């Protein structure tokens, strides 16, 4: 039972445009959400997070939006750069739970020059 879903396996965007990556969840107990980026042959690296008490968090070119009623979050990258090409994973947790995270399947983002 996939509690965190990324329904788009891949996304292709032109350099300078906006990239929007989507994530849906089913467990209403999730109260903390994170996005990770992964390059080939490297481990995932933390990108940005959001608590359920907020609906938006921004860090430079990256913004995460949370819609609790729809159980949906999205990551916006503006402007997109070729170096952003990677696999993006969303993850969710319930409270601290010893840091236990549930990950989505990942979306491969390709940014064309």
């Amino acid at each position, binding site marked *: 039972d996939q509690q965190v879903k990324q329904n788009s396996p891949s996304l292709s965007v032109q350099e300078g445009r906006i990239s929007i990556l989507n994530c849906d969840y089913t467990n209403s107990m999730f109260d903390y959400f994170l996005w990770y980026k992964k390059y080939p042959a490297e*481990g995932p690296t933390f990108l940005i997070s959001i608590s359920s008490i907020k609906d938006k968090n921004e860090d430079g070119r990256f913004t995460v939006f949370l819609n609790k009623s729809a159980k949906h979050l999205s990551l916006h990258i503006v402007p997109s750069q070729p170096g952003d090409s990677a696999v993006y994973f969303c993850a969710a947790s319930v409270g601290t739970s010893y840091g236990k995270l549930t*990950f989505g399947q990942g979306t491969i983002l390709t940014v064309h020059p």
Partner: protein
Amino acid sequence: DVKVTQSSRYLVKRTGEKVFLECVQDMDHENMFWYRQDPGLGLRLIYFSYDVKMKEKGDIPEGYSVSREKKERFSLILESASTNQTSMYLCAIEAGGAKNIQYFGAGTRLSVL
């Protein structure tokens, strides 16, 4: 900087072999995790540990065991490797003070023939 080191980048083993995957951290963090990453399935939690000699099953513990005799080292053991355990294995730690943010090693690509 948080450093998580996985002893091998690539491993090739035969069906039925006992396999040890090692993970070492350079700080005094309690929480350590083992995931496997498969295409279309994302990262799935195998086991985690929140202290020496403590372990908890994740979502897919079958066929695996773990060992944590020292705080800095968390080992994943495949008692009798099978071909369906061919995967990318990722170790992570949760750094204190940053809620649920996990830092990952570079991963071990295991092939079971």
